[in-house]
């Protein structure tokens, strides 16, 4: 264990100390730039953008992910305690809320 750790650390420490001893650091504006394609980046990356597909994500959770949980829930329904029932009801109610939201948005009607 000690040997393997040393085997990993020794070359790193050697390279680090070698660079520290001989090679001066030279940071600069271009060298510290984020992009490396030669062109300067324009604008800011911290911008708001519209998340168009969140409704698909909600529908996917309701009709796909929920089904995966509903099957084991149905199989072990008779042997569950009160806590598990309450937890599952909360889970389903959260998703039903999403369904109501999507329904109200008109996602379910075919146009």
């Amino acid at each position: 264990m000690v040997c393997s750790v040393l085997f990993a650390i020794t070359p790193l420490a050697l390279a680090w100390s070698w660079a520290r001893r001989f090679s001066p650091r030279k940071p600069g504006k271009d060298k510290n730039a984020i992009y490396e394609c030669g062109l300067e980046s324009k604008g800011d990356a911290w911008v708001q953008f519209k998340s168009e597909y969140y409704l698909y994500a909600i529908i996917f959770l309701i009709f796909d992910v929920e089904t995966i949980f509903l099957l084991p829930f149905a199989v072990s329904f008779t042997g569950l305690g009160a806590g598990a029932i309450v937890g599952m009801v909360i889970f389903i109610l959260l998703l039903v809320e999403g369904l109501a939201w999507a329904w109200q948005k008109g996602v379910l009607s075919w146009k």
Partner: protein
Amino acid sequence: MDEGLRSELSKQGIFTTSLQDLYNWGRKNSVWPLQFGLACCAIEMIATTMARYDLARFGAEVFRPSPRQADLMIVAGTVTKKMAPQVVRLFNQMPEPKYVIAMGACAISGGPFKQGYNVLKGIDRYIPVDVHIPGCPPRPEALIHAFMTLQQKIQDQNLTSAKRPRHLDADEPGEFDVPKFGEHDLEPPLNAGVWQPKTVTRTA
């Protein structure tokens, strides 16, 4: 260590070296070029890396697509004035130690397009070039020769002393000024610390 003693020892099968030689030997055999080409010279550069000429024999087959991982910039082709700032910026983004080979007549001086209003008259106006290769375009053998010349240059570099190379000297710049597009030409037209036009002295 005395050169005579070293050669005498090597005859007896004892290999001696110094830390500096070992360091330079490792460096010169793992020079990774930056993967970028500007014009027809790049085709010759690509041919050099392929099986027939096989640059991999010199430890330089790994063309890196990112300047962060590259040691060597092969300026292969005509540098237009529109491209020059990008070339200099890419060179700035490479970590030290970094080297430049100016490949072909265009990269050296503008070559056959020297008269063009949009052609840079040699990349050595902006960044320090280590090896120039003449030719239009140079054959792969010429690039290999330039590469071996660069390897020899790396081998001869001192780790400590007044003659140590740029990357070991804290006072030498690691970045070079990126030219801007001016009204008529690139501004500045050259980096004075890198290149100065020849002054012609006339004797009467």
